[in-house]
């Protein structure tokens, strides 16, 4: 069985700083990391490998040459092979152009080794769209399931997988025919420490790097900025609200004042049984 995990390099939003003058990100301030949701997707592939013999895990990323780092990280977690598509032609892609480029790379990977399952993180923490995974599935014409919180069964013989998909108030239990694409939530598993042999392998590992020319039959008008229907029109600071009442005095006085205001304004709140 061949599982391909799509991974993205993102700035670490926990550390990134905001330039107070421009209100935008100071990208230099943030280290680049493997998108946390994608790390869980790689981990899930590794988990499946424990239950089923002969699972081969590949990872695929699109990005600048530095994105090598997250492929090495994926190998640390347990991936067997890593592919990076890297070319100026891909730059500036929105979600539509990204899913196109990735689907072309997946076609090529499938020609090397047929793919049974594609895993993606629910979304990347820099764009927060969650649109690329379902887009890839559509382009490859395989069924997608988004927001997966648990893979409960993997039936190799029947070529299907049973998963729980998170909904607004509960979940769906779905059986999907493979090949399929799943996007995963963080609660799907707990990240584990990488075993030493993986770390050693990762340290030496060099991913397969493809440029647009390596992908074969590609319509270049669908790539990068050119192939992206959406553009950022403008950036603006949201309208300022006036702000309400600043309470004053010592902290005791402020607390007393706050409770007094609440009691006046929301009498129904302090409905004491």
């Amino acid at each position, binding site marked *: 069985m061949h599982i391909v995990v799509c991974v993205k390099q993102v700035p670490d939003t926990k550390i990134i700083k905001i330039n107070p003058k421009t209100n935008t990100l100071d990208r230099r301030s943030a280290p680049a990391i493997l998108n946390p949701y994608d790390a869980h997707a790689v981990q899930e592939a590794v988990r499946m490998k424990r239950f089923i013999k002969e699972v081969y895990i590949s990872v695929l990323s699109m990005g600048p040459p530095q994105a090598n780092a997250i492929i090495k990280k994926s190998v640390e977690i347990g991936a067997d092979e890593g592919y990076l598509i890297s070319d100026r032609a891909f730059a500036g892609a929105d979600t539509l152009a990204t899913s196109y480029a990735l689907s072309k790379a997946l076609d090529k990977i499938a020609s090397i080794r047929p793919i049974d399952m594609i895993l993606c993180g629910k979304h990347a*923490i820099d764009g927060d769209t969650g649109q690329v995974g379902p887009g890839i599935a559509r382009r490859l014409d395989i069924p997608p399931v988004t927001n997966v919180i648990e893979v409960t069964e993997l039936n190799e013989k029947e070529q299907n997988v049973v998963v729980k998909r998170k909904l607004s108030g509960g979940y769906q239990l779905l059986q999907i025919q493979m090949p399929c694409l799943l996007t995963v939530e963080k609660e799907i598993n707990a990240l584990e420490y990488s075993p030493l042999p993986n770390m050693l392998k990762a340290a030496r590992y060099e991913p397969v790097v493809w440029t647009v020319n390596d992908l074969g039959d590609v319509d270049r008008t669908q790539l990068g900025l050119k192939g992206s229907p959406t553009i950022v*029109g403008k950036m603006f600071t949201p309208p300022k609200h006036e702000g309400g*009442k600043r309470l004053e005095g010592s902290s005791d006085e402020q607390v007393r004042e706050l409770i007094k205001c609440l009691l006046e304004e*929301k009498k129904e709140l*302090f409905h004491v049984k």
Partner: protein
Amino acid sequence: MMGVPKMSKEYRGVWVFIEQNEGKIEGVSLELLGAGRKLADKLSVSLCGVLLGKDVLALCNQVISYGADKVYVIDHPVLEDYRTESYMKGVVLLAEKYSPEIFLYGATPNGKDLASAVATDLSTGLTADTTMLDVDLDKRLLEASRPAFGGNIMATILCKKHRPQMATVRPKVMKALEPDKERQGVIIEENIELYEDDMRTKVLKVVKDVTKRANLADAHIIVCGGKGLGDQQNFSLIYELAEVIGASVGGTRDVVEAGWLPHELQIGQTGETVTPKIYFAVGISGAIQHLVGMKNSEIIIAINKDASAPIFDIATYGIVGDALDILPKLIQQFKEIRTEKGGEISYA
């Protein structure tokens, strides 16, 4: 087929995907009818609801009463439960036949899933998790704005050459109209060929879980903590205050990322959007990603050390001070009220 601007034909009308679960329309779909009505009026076109499901014809009148001029409905047994493949097929069929210029979806798990697949099939642009909508009337362009990654800044996303212009919109951000039962509209039923045997996804079971998520969404009072509390141990003060006043607990993305709270309790752009009567924001600076998830709360109380924190701009009452000093006092005084009056504090 793709990449080529499909502007050769006329695209007209504003569409809203009407998400229903077991015969009940999702709140966000009604909100979008309210927002879509304004866009349609500005563009002088009709507002249409798109309704798919099994035995859903009875819902059409509700869609009209909330502002739609037309409802396109596909009623089919295979559409009983949401599945990407069947719903996408129906929606794409309608969009190709009637060519809307704008198509809005709720940013729910199903809405986002569907919109992503439909946008790929129609080869058009899709903006995720929009919180502001407008149109440029001259160019008939949808201006879909969303918080930009990281900064306290909004980005307006445009889709100039492709139609329909699509966006998913956060729940509880737009306002639904008052339903008008007298409102007249047209119902257009479409047929589709769907066979259960062709479906590669089978719904084995739908399980309702009305624990944590529902709690936050329906809570009258929420106490939400941020990184300003310092560490997980201090965060217990949030639980203590919540307990005393019968509130639900939430947290910011930072707090969830740090592992102090489970993801279900995250409030903001990538978590829950909430609109309680009273919202305590404790140790929260007020990044826009957080604000979009709570700014429509009735009363917002901000407690933060930094007097210039943006949270104070939207707060009804602001206390500049150390949460570790203020919270115990707040808890103490609420407890005293409780003892004075006897019993428990709760929202009636």
